[in-house]
């Protein structure tokens, strides 16, 4: 069977056993198109950071491949690693003096006269915590217990973050309509 036709597991075996670069490139090309936009959204649209996170995600994943038990799909596992790495970057940003010592909880709202934002831009404007929960729940289809486990937060916190995220998002997308709700 040609390398591009091999399953994720067979490709991973080749990488673990012999550091097979061709097998890695197939795996990379299969999953990076989904990994990149996911981490890009978690990071609020920072392209350079997203590429760094993708690189770190693959390095961590290949290191950990021998211990991966295949209880989930490789893609789900990769997105989990990417999510953790992206959150580390967000925490680093929030620790940087330019952003102050505390996590940013106030969204970067457009000026009052701004026109409606498109959904992608509005998501990027959300505070980090809101955005992460919203992406996992409304885009990736995770449940609150799953989000709670992945982000190491209480289920109630996940629900609350989602509630605030959606309200903020609606306000960003259509300020006039949200006023009337």
């Amino acid at each position, binding site marked *: 069977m040609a390398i591009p036709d091999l399953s994720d597991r067979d490709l991973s075996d080749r990488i673990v056993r012999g550091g097979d670069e061709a097998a890695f490139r197939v795996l990379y090309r299969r999953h*990076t*198109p*989904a990994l990149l*936009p996911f981490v890009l959204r978690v990071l609020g649209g920072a392209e350079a950071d997203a590429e760094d996170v993708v690189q770190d995600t693959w*390095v961590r994943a290949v290191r950990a491949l021998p211990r991966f038990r295949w209880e989930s799909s490789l893609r789900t596992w990769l997105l989990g690693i990417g999510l953790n790495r992206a959150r580390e970057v967000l925490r680093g940003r929030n620790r940087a003096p330019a952003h102050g010592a505390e996590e940013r909880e106030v969204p970067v709202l457009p000026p009052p006269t701004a026109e409606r934002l498109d959904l992608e831009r509005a998501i990027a404007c959300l505070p980090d915590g809101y955005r992460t929960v919203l992406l996992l729940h409304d885009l990736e289809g995770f449940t609150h217990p799953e989000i709670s486990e992945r982000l190491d937060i209480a289920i109630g916190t996940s*629900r609350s973050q*989602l509630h605030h995220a959606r309200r903020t998002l609606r306000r960003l997308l259509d300020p006039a309509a949200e006023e009337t709700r």
Partner: protein
Amino acid sequence: MNDHDLPDELTSEEREAFASLPRERIPPATLEERVVGALRAEGLLSDATRQRAGAQGFRRSWVAAAVAAGLALFVSGVAVGHWSAGERVADAVSAALDHGADPQQAATEVQEAGSEYVRAVAHLAELAGQDTGGELASGAEAARVALHAAALELARVRPDDPTLRLVLAVLEERADAASDTTAGPARKTIWF
């Protein structure tokens, strides 16, 4: 209480809007090489692979240097030309850029073509001393066309290279100038 009992459940329009967001995106080509490089540096990809990749890197850099040297000779104003030699340079460059080509063989071909090219320069210098203007002009035109083809081939691989863009601009300027002098001497191939 499950997830959908929340008072702010998404409307159908909002669900559609989320569903319409692209889930995939083609990553930049440079990112794959960065990632592979990082894995090699960590020792997570094999040495054998590194050697193959190294040969390819050698091939690319060697070809770039060979073409740059050839173009520099031409752009520096030396009126050179030999259709066969120029064509061999272009062919060798194409072969070297072809992923299926053997890097050592491609490198040798480029080197041989380059040597022939240098011999052509020397011969044309002699011709210049003998006032054979027609032969010089046809040789220079042939060299320009061949080198232009080689530069375009390289530009396909490295479209953002500023030096290459500059060289192409000079070559295209010369092509325009050449096309304005169609009443010049009859073209004739010179063999070395």
